[in-house]
């Protein structure tokens, strides 16, 4: 047993001496993003000087990602961790940060980059918040990535953040940040023109994932399939929703692909609404491999469904 203990001590000493050699690093700024959308954006800003990876996949519900040990390797070597924040990752990121052994990305370090600092949140709850309200996010709706104008603000912010982490390329990061932000604003305008005919359209959705998108493009959200955030619908809540959909003449039910589509299909069937299943994160479907493609995919899907 003593021998075993000694062996492990030797192994750990070896590991620790190798760690400062940056055995994994490729000379580029190593960036890990919790979500694929921010990974795409960070790659635009980081250009050739950054290597960016996403922990969650685009088809995944980001509230429920398993904190897999394989993420530890990416986090261990990261120079920057980009997170959505607003408690979106509270169920899985803390144990990974605890175990990754990387001081550069711990909360409070320059490499810990909570991207919600760059945007203005919506749906911040008033007064007391408790779980009778469902899986409520006390700091507001964390799904701000579906508004291209938010992505523009984040791109500009990342230009500065990367510049601080890697000052030798600060000018390039700032320039890329500005260019990416301009592209995001153009994308926002493009989608606004596309969806102009649907301004004020009453819609129903599953979870509050698309609220920033709906807010930006003037949709009128008349109800959610979930009676409260993260709570499974009951027969009574569905009946009330269907009634409201008929009253408000909501003809579109828009849902993320990872939700319970059987329930969504039933509600759509009962009310004569068209079900629109969309990817809500970059890479969540074929044809949505980049962020602009994702936004266009969503806009097109809604537009086509509205035309019947």
């Amino acid at each position, binding site marked *: 047993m003593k021998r075993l203990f000694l062996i492990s001590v030797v192994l750990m000493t070896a590991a620790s001496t190798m760690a400062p050699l940056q055995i994994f690093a490729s000379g580029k700024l190593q960036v890990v993003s919790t979500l694929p959308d921010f990974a795409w954006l960070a790659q635009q800003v980081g250009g050739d000087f950054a290597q960016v990876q996403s922990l969650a996949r685009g088809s995944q519900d980001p509230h429920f990602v398993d904190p897999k040990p394989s993420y530890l390797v990416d986090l261990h070597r990261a120079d920057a961790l980009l997170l959505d924040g607003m408690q979106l990752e509270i169920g899985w990121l803390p144990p990974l940060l605890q175990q990754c052994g990387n001081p550069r990305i711990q909360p409070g370090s320059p490499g810990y980059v909570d991207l919600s600092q760059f945007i203005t*949140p919506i749906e911040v709850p008033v007064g007391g918040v408790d779980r009778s309200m469902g899986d409520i996010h006390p700091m507001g709706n964390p799904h701000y990535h579906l*508004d291209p104008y938010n992505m523009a603000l984040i791109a500009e912010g990342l230009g500065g953040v990367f510049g601080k982490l890697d000052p030798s390329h600060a000018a390039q990061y700032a320039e890329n940040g500005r260019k990416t932000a301009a592209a995001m604003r153009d994308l926002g305008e493009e989608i606004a023109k596309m969806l102009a005919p649907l*301004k004020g359209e009453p819609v129903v959705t599953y979870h509050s994932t698309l609220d920033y998108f709906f807010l*930006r493009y003037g949709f009128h959200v008349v109800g959610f399939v979930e009676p409260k955030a993260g709570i499974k619908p009951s027969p009574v809540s569905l009946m009330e929703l269907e009634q409201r959909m008929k009253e408000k003449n909501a003809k579109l039910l828009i849902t993320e692909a990872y939700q319970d589509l059987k329930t969504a299909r039933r509600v759509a069937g009962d009310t004569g609404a068209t079900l629109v299943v969309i990817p809500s994160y970059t890479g969540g479907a074929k044809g949505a491999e980049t962020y602009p493609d994702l936004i266009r995919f969503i806009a097109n899907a809604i537009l086509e469904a509205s035309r019947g």
Partner: protein
Amino acid sequence: MKMSFAAVAAVLLLCATGFFAQVAQPSPQDLQQQIQALQAQMQAMARDYQAKLDELQKQLEALKSQQQASGAPPSQGGVPQYEGTAPPLPASATGANALANPAISLIPDMIASGGNDPYWLGQPNAYMREVEIAFSAAIDPYANAFAALSLEDGQLNVEEGYAAFPALWGGFSAKLGKFKADFGKNNQMHSHTWFQADQPLALREILGEEGFSDTGLSLSHLLPTPWTSDITVEVTSGRADLFGGSRSSLAYLAAWRNYWDLTDNSNLEAQLSLSAGKNAQNGTTKLGNLSVTYRYKPIGNRRESFIWRTEYLRKDVDFENVVTPDDPSQPSYLVEGADRWKGAFSYVDWQFARGWFLGTRGDWVRHPDGGNDSGGALVLTWFPSEFQKFRLQYARTNYAGIGMRDAVVFEYGFAIGPHGAHPF
């Protein structure tokens, strides 16, 4: 003096001429012309101000829409209409609370049991098995604190209470305090996260009711292997009921964890843990655990998952006893020996709908005297939300020297407070 007088007089004269020139009666045509000029001036000013006001209005609208949804262009009009969502509040309120108080959670666990299993017969027919009170907060930029106090049978025990140092020099992470030993996967789980209503028989009989937890230091480091692998070394006090050596003897543990993503939806984890420490019988107690876990959880689907876990445990208690015979003429002699325990369990937990899980478990333990306990359990669990759990379990166990016994167990538990994520 003369000069200045002349200057003042000249100025006064000039002013007076100007004044009287103004006061002098103008002709009606002059007046009309003046009024027209004034009107034109007024109209020009009004146009100018209107243009400025319009410009300001535009800027204000642009600012407002930027505030509402960050970065909207001025052309973005229309106030969005919402139903069923809460209105806004400054986000700072939650931040201030987080600084003042640690996150506190309360996790009660209630049990009701029936049948003739001796383990459950030793418990009340219905009781509050445990109320876990968990605290967590950052201590300072270098360490986080976690404490799980367990209120059982009117007694408050420290189940875990440690400072975690997530990022030490050289990529190490550490824990200092009382913690659940890195001895297999199941040993580290708190009772409210178990897949069954009770711990597997092997853990209960070989490690004791409280499992393997101790006070000391734990150091972990990732290994530079092509797969995910880390090693943990723990030096602890050598807890009395598991080791029980003298004050100067410590217990040591080394754990080697390996993990592979098989696909996006499935993974495999294997861990070897070995531990040793001096015991009260002048010998060494050695413990070993081999744990294998397979998980299937399709990403983008919360309605199905599957986990299979198997652990094999060993405990060797070597002892040396000096025996002094009753007859004083006979010399004392040394008795050396070892109590060897072996055990294993294997379980699956299959999620067949959102919140619904069906599981089964097989148990086996071999006592030092060669007797075997073995059994199996069938478990149905329902989580109405992530914070509430109902469980029904039927177990049948064949105890050495006792025979076949049955137990039906109902468990209900909930969690309030921001109880954070558990390690994978």
